[in-house]
């Protein structure tokens, strides 16, 4: 028992019994901090992407539905977070942090960024959950990107200025958002996670132990 120190209130902590299961779903501190770091870094990229979005979507203005191709730039945080942390809620958490940061810096979408972030993260999260948080291969990453794409497709065609456009345009937007999700959010995130693992930055994570152990 820890001995009483003068002048302080001591709360004795009873150690939680260790579970025999190797895989645990409880978030460690390092999970939270690294997920936040990835979220923040992604948030800065989201903000920059948001700046570039206006001219880029202007370029695509000849076919308004194609603006969906740019949507992937805001979807990769959740997939990347999920692939690295590999715990329930990672995709949603990382995407929300990214949305908050891009909002703090200043985007034209203001607070709706947060709501969008939550739903987009949910889109990826549901895919990871469907695989019981056990399968983290390329296929699942691509599907998660697609899931986020579906989420943003639904949101954008219902609640933003895109809701004011024709149905045909909305359909094109939806499909291109999903494609963008697969390529940018799915493939790129998977590559980034792999690059991180190779550099040894993920030594405290299960995702960093894909290579054979060093002697």
């Amino acid at each position, binding site marked *: 028992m*820890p001995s009483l120190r003068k002048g*302080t209130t001591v709360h004795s902590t009873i150690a939680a019994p260790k579970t025999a299961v190797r895989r645990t779903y409880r978030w460690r501190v390092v999970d939270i901090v690294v997920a936040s770091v990835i979220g923040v870094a992604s948030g800065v990229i989201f903000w920059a992407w948001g700046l570039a979005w206006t001219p880029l979507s202007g370029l695509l203005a000849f076919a308004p539905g194609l603006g969906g191709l740019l949507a992937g730039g805001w979807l990769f945080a959740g997939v990347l977070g999920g692939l690295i942390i590999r715990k329930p809620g990672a995709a949603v958490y990382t995407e929300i942090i990214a949305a908050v940061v891009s909002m703090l810096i200043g985007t034209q979408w203001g607070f709706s960024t947060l709501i969008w972030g939550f739903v987009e993260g949910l889109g990826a999260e549901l895919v990871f959950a469907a695989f019981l948080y056990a399968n983290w291969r390329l296929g699942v990453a691509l599907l998660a990107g697609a899931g986020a794409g579906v989420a943003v497709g639904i949101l954008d065609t219902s609640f933003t200025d895109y809701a004011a456009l024709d149905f045909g345009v909305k359909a094109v937007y939806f499909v291109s958002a999903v494609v963008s999700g697969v390529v940018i959010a799915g493939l790129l995130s998977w590559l980034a996670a792999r690059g991180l693992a190779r550099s040894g930055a993920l030594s405290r994570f299960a995702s960093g132990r894909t290579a054979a152990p060093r002697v």
Partner: protein
Amino acid sequence: MTAENETTGGARIIARGWGWRHASRRAPAVHGLDLRIEPGERVLLLGRSGAGKSTLIQALAGVLGGDEEGDATGELLIDGHAPQSARGEAGLVLQDPDSQVVLARVGDDVAFACENLGVPREEIWRRVPAALAEVGLDLPLDHPTAQLSGGQKQRLALAGVVAMRPRLLLLDEPTANLDPAGVVDVRDAVAGTLQRSGATLVVIEHRVSVWLDVVDRVIVLDPDGGLLADGRPREVLQTAGASLAAAGVWVPGFPPARPVRRPRVAGEPLLAASGLAVGRTEFGRRRPTVVSSGIDLELAAGESLAIVGENGAGKSTLALTLAGLLAPAGGSLEALPALARGLGSQPYRWRSRQLLTRAGMVFQDPEHQFLAGTVRAELEVGPRALGDGLGRADTVRVDELLERLHLDHLANANPFTLSGGEKRRLSVATALATRPQVLLLDEPTFGQDALTWQELVALLAELVDDGTALVSVTHDRDYVETIADRSLVLHGLSFEGRVIV
């Protein structure tokens, strides 16, 4: 509750056959450790790299991670219970000052540990100023932590630990990345804390002389398990001193070998600065903030110049300017014909590729310069950037560098997975791959153990003797004595640029 006796007493550490294997490694980091440390003892933990010192310290702090991160064998007890169940009883200070600051204001950062321990609010704000005073950090509570120097950040980390009133103080190379003044500040702050609280101390450090007067016991870990030596400092250093020095520890009385220098032959002048002012442009500003001005210097081939001065005097900024990476903020910096070889006389205006064979810069933090996925690819970046792909001569050069710097067995490893000394050697090697005429180094010996220091100094001496001009920004007195022909002392904005021969 005021003016109470702050003695918390020390923790007793007992290890019985303890070992730990990281999940990503095959061999255990520590095994078969039997140890007993009494309350209030002050222990210096030594051993060659890979002996498991950091692992032991992290285990004592309770932060080694659970089943997810590895397997434990045997028993490790602090005051009779496992370290994890009483996190916050041991205070841990790590090596990197930047990675320990949690919050944006000084007072909040110190209060963080107390908050986690459930200390009541009034008590927290009594402890915070007391802790800051104890470590000698005389700053207002809302001072931004981002504006602290390295030594100040380490003392801030120590203040946070002191506010916890720990019974066990654990320090993992706390002074490795600090200048000599910072080292003394931290050491004195720790000594004062131990005096007041009577806590147990376990400290890892390469440089034994810093802690020799503070500790009363030295333990040397054996990479093959167990202990190599354990006893009073003088005795251990006498018996195991030679082998420790061979393993890279800075043992007083066993200094690293200094290279033999050839007599200096004056070469062609390469760089000339006259009334040079250096500074950086802040984000969003138009004009640079000048940190040092009125600098006059001349650099010729085969010469070695050391730039010394206090923190904040602008040494790194000067090195970056001389290397053509920052624009001069005033005055003139001229590259003479022998260096410019057909280009303009302003290094800042040269293209990146043109810098490769003229001025090579090695940054203070090697990780900032890593670009490739393997060590070999890293060395090939420079020759590739010169154009025309990778020729036979280039491959030969890369192999030669790998061998010379003892990196050949790591040729396929990812640069980030190397140890500190290996990363430093790699970053120097990458600058050398394209044979620059001038080599600039920013704090090359920071945090280096004696072996790496020796090898680096030998390599640099050879380079200088062969005709490369060397500019080193450094705090290291031994390094200056060994390598530098001249010194340039910077005093910040009130500059007195005396060149000492």
